[in-house]
């Protein structure tokens, strides 16, 4: 626990209601969302399609205005120029000026941060190298593949050597090698003291990378906290137990501790609801003189939490910082 850490992103009771169609039907994309991203951490922003991740990020970047609530970056209100100067942003499926070459494109964006001359040129070369696009530096963006665009998109997000990097689905469109490279890049950013917030559907990536995550569904926060603690709190660690020569009475005695039991002749395969039941189950086996073949804890993941939440566990799982 570290309360002295600076809050880089702070979102308080943020909501966004879109009005769509002729009758102005109200669609609540983000619903009373509050969260905080602290200095130096990698923060995962997770949720299914249409959960409101992009909408939240667009509000943070000042592209759309909240219907209610507030957010700040570096303690400054949204839209503050000094704060924006310290942020790098990659939009979802990025769209850029396709008549520019990657180099011209990065040069233009460098100018928008007031970068100039040889400092800028050096930075551009470094970034193109970093995202593996040196070979395409003089190619127009309209000739780029989706993944190549994603890569220059990541490069432009870092042109100003930002303190905070906000990436909306940085892995989308990338091949496995590209995904690994982006993961490494995010870790390197953290190593150099930067703060990274990214949205993703790929829970495995989030689990590997993030210090903390927030999970939202239908615009509402459903879970947030440290990855490992979230998994422990929000999911139950099931354990698979294989036993031979267990008598029918033994099977009955085991039942209170299991989710399901399968009989294969002599063999019993039982799934324990939680690790807490392991001792009890072992006691049953011993007292019925059966033979334990294997005991395998099922490793829970963010995905389990995600699926549980998606199935409608509506209470918020919150693990304190």
């Amino acid at each position, binding site marked *: 626990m570290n309360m002295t850490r600076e809050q880089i992103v702070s979102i308080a009771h943020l909501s966004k209601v*879109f009005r769509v169609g002729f009758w102005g039907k109200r669609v609540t994309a983000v619903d009373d969302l509050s969260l905080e991203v602290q200095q130096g951490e990698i923060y995962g922003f997770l949720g299914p399609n249409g959960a409101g991740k992009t909408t939240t990020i*667009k509000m943070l*970047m*000042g*592209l*759309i*205005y909240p219907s209610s609530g507030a957010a700040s970056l570096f303690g400054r209100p949204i839209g503050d*120029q*000094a704060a*924006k*100067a310290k*942020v790098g*942003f990659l*939009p979802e499926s*990025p*769209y*850029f*000026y396709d*008549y*520019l070459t990657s180099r011209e494109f990065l040069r*233009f*964006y460098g*100018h*928008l*941060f*007031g970068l100039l001359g040889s400092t800028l040129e050096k930075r551009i070369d470094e970034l193109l190298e970093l995202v593996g696009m040196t070979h395409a530096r003089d190619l127009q963006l309209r000739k780029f593949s989706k993944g190549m665009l994603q890569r220059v998109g990541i490069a*432009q997000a870092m042109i*100003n050597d930002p303190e905070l990097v906000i990436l909306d689905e940085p892995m989308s469109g990338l091949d496995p090698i590209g995904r690994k490279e982006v993961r490494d890049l995010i870790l390197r950013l953290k190593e150099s003291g930067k703060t990274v917030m990214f949205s993703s559907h790929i829970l495995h990536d989030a689990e590997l990378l993030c210090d903390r995550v927030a999970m939202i569904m239908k615009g509402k926060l459903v879970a947030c906290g440290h990855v490992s603690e979230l998994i422990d709190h929000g999911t139950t660690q099931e354990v698979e137990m294989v036993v031979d020569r267990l008598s029918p009475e033994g099977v009955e005695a085991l039942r209170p501790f299991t989710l399901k039991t399968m009989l294969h002749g002599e063999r019993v395969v039982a799934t324990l609801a939680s690790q807490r039941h392991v001792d009890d189950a072992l006691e049953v086996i011993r007292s019925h003189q059966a033979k334990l073949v294997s005991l395998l804890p099922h490793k829970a993941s963010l995905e389990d939490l995600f699926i549980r939440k998606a199935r409608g566990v509506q209470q918020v799982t919150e693990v304190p910082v």
Partner: protein
Amino acid sequence: MKVISIALNTFRENLRDKLLYNLLIFALLMIGSSLILMRLTLGEFHRLILDIGLGSINFFGVLIAIFVGIGLVSKEIEKKTIYTIVSKPVARFQFLLGKYLGLSLTLLINTAIMAVGLLAVLYVQEVPIHAVLFKALGLIVVEFMVITAVALLFSTFSSATFSAIFTLALYVIGHLTPDLKAFGEKMGGLGKTILEGMYYVLPNLDRFNLKGHVTHQLDVPAGELLVIGLYGIAYSAFLLTVASVIFQRRDFR
């Protein structure tokens, strides 16, 4: 600096617009067509060439100002290219100003090319060239800037089609404002108040038209030229300010 970068990028973007080249070629063809005109009486002939030349430059420039102008900002929103600009330390009004100046630069260079075409025709046809011609060309560019500002303003809150219609309408009415006032005088009462109000609020585009002066070789004093020029710039600045206020409140969705 940021504004200039955005302006130069806009200029570069304009250079890729096929519409621009098509209109430019049409304009040059129109101007060049005077080369095959039969020589009428000398005075008539000179007047006709200047009329066609300045008319073409004005007409095609206005078309560019309107049809490129209405897409200037709306296309960036549609194509989402604006996301990465506005999220950088660039204020929305700076973005708007950069786009505006970029198209203004395009129009300036475009006018220069058409003017060179006109001068070549004048030279071949041995039409005397007076200083007032350059003054007229200068004011044509100022008029383009006003029209671009109108197109930009409309495009911050309405669709491309409506923006085009509104801007064209304003262009036509803008050239009729003296008539509006005269008409109002005759009407009297409420009609007079309304028409007079329109006379003052709408851009008085006829002020930028020196074609009569050019064809009749009447010079315009520098002082007057300056006043008209400043009027155009002030009017554009006013339109851009209103556009900025509207643009500032928009959601880019």
